């Protein structure tokens, strides 16, 4: 083999080795024992927007206007590395003049050498900025989800605690509780399953039909769009009215009827007037005390819908009138 062949062989070997280094997508640096750059990969130049000439042969801390003179990195190289053969994913957060604030994961390994005499370091640098951002966003999202779940459990606890147990059998309590629980599930579904708003007619029919397909007559009326919050409250109010009707009111007899109708009153601001009218049931008397159901209705109308409700226990049948502003309801 002549000298030229040997040169070609060595050169090919070197080109191939450099090719491998340049193909690795993450920036790589090879440093000598004094932290001068011996080799850098193509990804290093492109990521940090520097040229080969201003990199090779320079001291690491002098590179690119001293942008690598970072206290955390100094500590890593001067204190940690000498005592260990490798450091993996050491996190460095730094404001790089060329590319801005970044989170870099720096790994340092003593460069492999067959005789184990190497004092060079291979530094690989992974930009984890976006990954860290995603992780932070995911944490926020998970936190919010956990918060909502606890809130929902709080609602379930509230109805479990306020469904009357005294004087009722276990079965009766269970049925009453599950009735409210299902109403809550459905109200939640109706309120949050669709994007935006839903129509009052649809909400009334979907909520009331299961209680009595024939006993409840939802008359058609003007189009009224409801927000999620309004749907939620209204669904729960309707459940309380319907179960009350089944227990004591018009739906407790085969001949009883409930008419639900509404109109939109256009005053200075439009408002909804919704009427629940029972007839044909047993004679009605006002309840002796106001229980959870009544409180729920009154509170939901006044606070959630921003309106007022009148429960009129007329002997011929309960009449409930809800008047609430439409549009911007707080």
């Amino acid at each position, binding site marked *: 083999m002549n000298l030229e062949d040997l040169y070609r062989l060595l050169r090919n070997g070197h080109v191939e080795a450099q090719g491998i280094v340049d193909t690795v997508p993450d920036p790589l640096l090879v440093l000598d024992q004094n932290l001068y750059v011996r080799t850098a990969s193509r990804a290093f130049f492109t990521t940090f927007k520097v040229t080969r000439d201003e990199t090779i042969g320079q001291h690491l801390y002098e590179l690119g206007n001293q942008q690598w003179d970072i206290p955390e990195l100094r500590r890593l190289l001067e204190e940690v590395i000498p005592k260990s053969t490798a450091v993996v994913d050491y996190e460095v957060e730094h404001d790089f003049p060329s590319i801005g604030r970044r989170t870099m994961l720096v790994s340092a390994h003593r460069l492999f050498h067959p005789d184990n005499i190497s004092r060079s370091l291979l530094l690989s640098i992974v930009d984890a900025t976006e990954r860290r951002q995603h992780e932070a966003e995911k944490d926020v999202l998970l936190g919010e989800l956990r918060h909502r779940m606890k809130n929902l459990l709080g609602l379930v606890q509230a109805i479990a605690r306020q469904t009357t147990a005294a004087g009722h059998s276990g079965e009766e309590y269970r049925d009453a509780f599950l009735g409210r629980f299902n109403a809550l599930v459905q109200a939640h579904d109706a309120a949050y399953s669709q994007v935006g708003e839903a129509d009052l007619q649809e909400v009334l029919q979907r909520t009331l039909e299961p209680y009595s397909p024939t006993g409840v007559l939802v008359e058609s009326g003007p189009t009224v769009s409801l927000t999620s919050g309004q749907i939620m409250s209204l669904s729960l109010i309707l459940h309380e009215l319907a179960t009350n009707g089944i227990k004591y009111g018009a739906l407790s007899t085969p001949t009883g009827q409930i008419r639900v109708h509404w109109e939109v009153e256009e005053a200075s601001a439009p408002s909804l007037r919704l009427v629940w009218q029972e007839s044909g049931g047993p004679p009605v008397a006002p309840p002796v005390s106001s229980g959870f159901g009544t409180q729920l209705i009154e509170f939901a109308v006044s*606070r959630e819908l921003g309106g007022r409700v009148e429960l009129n226990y007329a002997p011929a049948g309960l009449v409930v009138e809800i008047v609430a502003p439409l549009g911007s309801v*707080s």
Partner: protein
Amino acid sequence: MLIVEDEFLIAIDLKLLLQRRGWSVLGPATTVKEALALLDDELPAVAILHVTLKDGSVTLVAEALRARQVPFVVASAYSRPELIGGDVLAGAPSVGKPTEEHRLLAVLENAVRS
């Protein structure tokens, strides 16, 4: 006692639960505005605060209570309510959410005594 809670089912539950235990209840207030208006009329012995209300965080209410030396407890599903409601909530006794009845009563009585 004053209840500040904007989730209406929970608000009614707390009110009925505490009334049954002999507390006289102010509210429930569902907004910061409403809570502050209630405080102008009458000072409760203690208050129970939800952290996020319809018109913002409960911070102003907590500050008003502190200025009037009314103790308050926090009912929140957040593990660190002060991150949302500000420093005024840091260190306030928490009754958690969902709120367990015995713990609620114990924390309230403790707050009133101290």
